[in-house]
């Protein structure tokens, strides 16, 4: 067994190219793996201004020329990009003298990695961050079915399938009919260090831009789409304001924005609700630190990274008891769980925290400790490395080795 396995990560986004959650995930995981003694190579799409080849925190990053011509549609672009990514990766692997493990993140790199697996005869590991079924709430067109079948193909070809919550693991196992022993749950992580500096800083002036000193800040962060549940928070606002002087701050954009503004108006709480739109990273982190309570009222949530961020920012959390959120939060210990899609329940959870400082502090400290212990990237990288070692050990007994 090699003490430092050579891992090649495949992802369609890597900083500075940031589209969704995969980019920071692969960045943090790769960095920590490299610090844990793995040799890590990242193959990703090119990005204006970013070098084609560079070393980032001991991780060797290759940005390949993705498909630049107009593509018929997004999925076709993905496949064409895979074609380009694969041929570049084939040269890189040959030049490196081989790698030990190929690690794919989502269907977006399925075709490239599956071919390489067979060509180089190396084990393929897949992390499934989300599924087409979950994103669309079902499969309704050939376009969606093709992506769904590509996801199935990737999980079939993978030696192990990693999911970031038990909720996702069960979902993926059932939709793709996978054997249980092929699947592993390794949570997503949050870097508490990114919040620690703001926790020490005096943020009074920053806070005053959003709320008066008499107002408690109730914070929602997320896309303004139905499944994220901002509407539930606005419906709960009158009940919250009956008991506490609060300012409800809604960060994010989405197709529901107009609807939510109108809802706040009709509930008679518009003067107490602030829509900030999209915030830059620093302001967002500071606001998360300033919040007296962070609400995650999602109706559907595969993982729920925003709850972890709030916990790292030492803001007490109120979350829907659903999906990945159910696993992250322990009720009355690291947060308050409420019934999904129930404004009454949400108002109860929020006021419970805002009216009892002792309780809020207890939740705050427990949650912070939990995040540091269970959701830190170093631990996640360690768990991932253990999977690599195990897979390599199994692999060494096959005729491919």
């Amino acid at each position, binding site marked *: 067994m090699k003490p430092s396995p050579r891992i090649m990560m495949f992802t369609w986004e890597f900083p500075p190219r940031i589209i969704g959650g995969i980019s920071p995930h692969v960045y943090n995981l790769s960095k920590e793996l490299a610090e844990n003694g793995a040799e890590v190579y990242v193959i990703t799409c090119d990005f204006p201004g970013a070098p084609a080849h560079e070393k980032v925190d001991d991780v060797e990053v290759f940005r390949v020329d993705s498909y630049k011509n107009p593509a018929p549609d997004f999925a*076709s672009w993905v496949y064409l990009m895979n074609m380009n990514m694969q041929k570049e990766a*084939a040269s890189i692997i040959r030049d490196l003298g081989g790698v030990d493990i190929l690690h794919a993140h989502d269907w977006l790199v399925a075709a490239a990695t599956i071919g390489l697996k067979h060509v180089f005869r190396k084990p393929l590991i897949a992390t499934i961050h989300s599924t087409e079924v979950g994103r669309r709430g079902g499969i309704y067109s*050939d376009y969606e079915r093709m992506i769904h079948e590509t996801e199935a193909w990737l999980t079939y070809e993978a030696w192990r399938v990693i999911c970031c919550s038990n909720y996702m693991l069960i979902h993926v196992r059932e939709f793709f009919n996978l054997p249980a022993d092929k699947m592993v749950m390794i949570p997503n992580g949050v870097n508490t260090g990114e919040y620690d500096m703001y926790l020490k800083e005096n943020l009074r002036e920053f806070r005053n831009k959003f709320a008066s000193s008499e107002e408690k800040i109730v914070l929602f962060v997320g896309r303004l789409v139905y499944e994220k549940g901002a509407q539930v928070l606005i419906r709960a606002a009158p009940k919250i304001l009956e008991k506490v002087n609060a300012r409800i701050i809604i960060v994010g954009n989405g197709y529901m924005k107009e609807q939510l503004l109108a809802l706040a108006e009709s509930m008679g709480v518009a003067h107490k609700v602030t829509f900030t739109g999209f915030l830059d990273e620093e302001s967002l982190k500071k606001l998360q630190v300033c919040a007296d309570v962070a609400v995650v009222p999602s109706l559907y949530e595969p993982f729920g990274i925003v709850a972890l961020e709030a916990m790292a920012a030492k803001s007490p959390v109120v979350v829907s008891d659903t999906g990945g959120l159910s696993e992250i939060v322990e009720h009355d210990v690291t947060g308050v769980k409420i019934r999904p899609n129930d404004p009454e329940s949400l108002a109860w959870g929020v006021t419970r925290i805002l009216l009892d400082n002792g309780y809020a502090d207890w939740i705050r400290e427990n949650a912070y400790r939990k995040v540091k212990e269970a959701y830190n990237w170093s631990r996640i990288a360690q768990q991932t490395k253990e999977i690599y070692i195990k897979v390599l050990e199994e692999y060494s007994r096959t005729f491919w080795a």
Partner: protein
Amino acid sequence: MRIIIFSWEYPPRIVGRLAYYVSELATKLANSGLKMHVVTYHDSLIGDFEEASGVKVHRVTNPVKTHINLLTWTITLNQEIERITANIYYRENGQIDLIDVHEWQFIPAAVTIKRAFEIPFIYSIESIEDHRSGGANNPMNIAIKSIEQLGVLEADIIIVKSEWMKNEVKTIYGVSTGKIKVANLEERNGLKAILDVYRSLKGEGTQK
């Protein structure tokens, strides 16, 4: 010499003339003493293997059944072409002399295999997208052209069937004529011309 031919049609799956042409070529090459493999597609014969007239035929099906266009269909299928080719490569201890790719469909697999194993490939052109598309230049046509362009660039040699096509490929894809050979099985001495191209790539002169 051990040769692998890639073709997206091969009997019993017949789309156009290519199926007959490739099967006749493979059979004649096998009769000339070459060790011939054909890697091809079939709708339903998964992992089918057949040895007939000295030609080993490997058939794969598409691992993804639902598709939105020819491109997505082609690219997922290429991964299976790579899988079977790699299996042949490892079984034969890397003793593959060259890959002869007919038309553009399996160019992506040939490029990956070339880069991974340093096996040269020939791009055998029957027709090109510029002619087939009748002047249309929508994203689908552009994508197919870009794959043809990739094939023209990465191939060690291009085989066309006429001087006219040689000129077309040269003009449209900006490739030097030295790289393009004219050889057509259906013409006199066609087989010998193709064998000569194979041997030139192998660097063996004219006899082995």
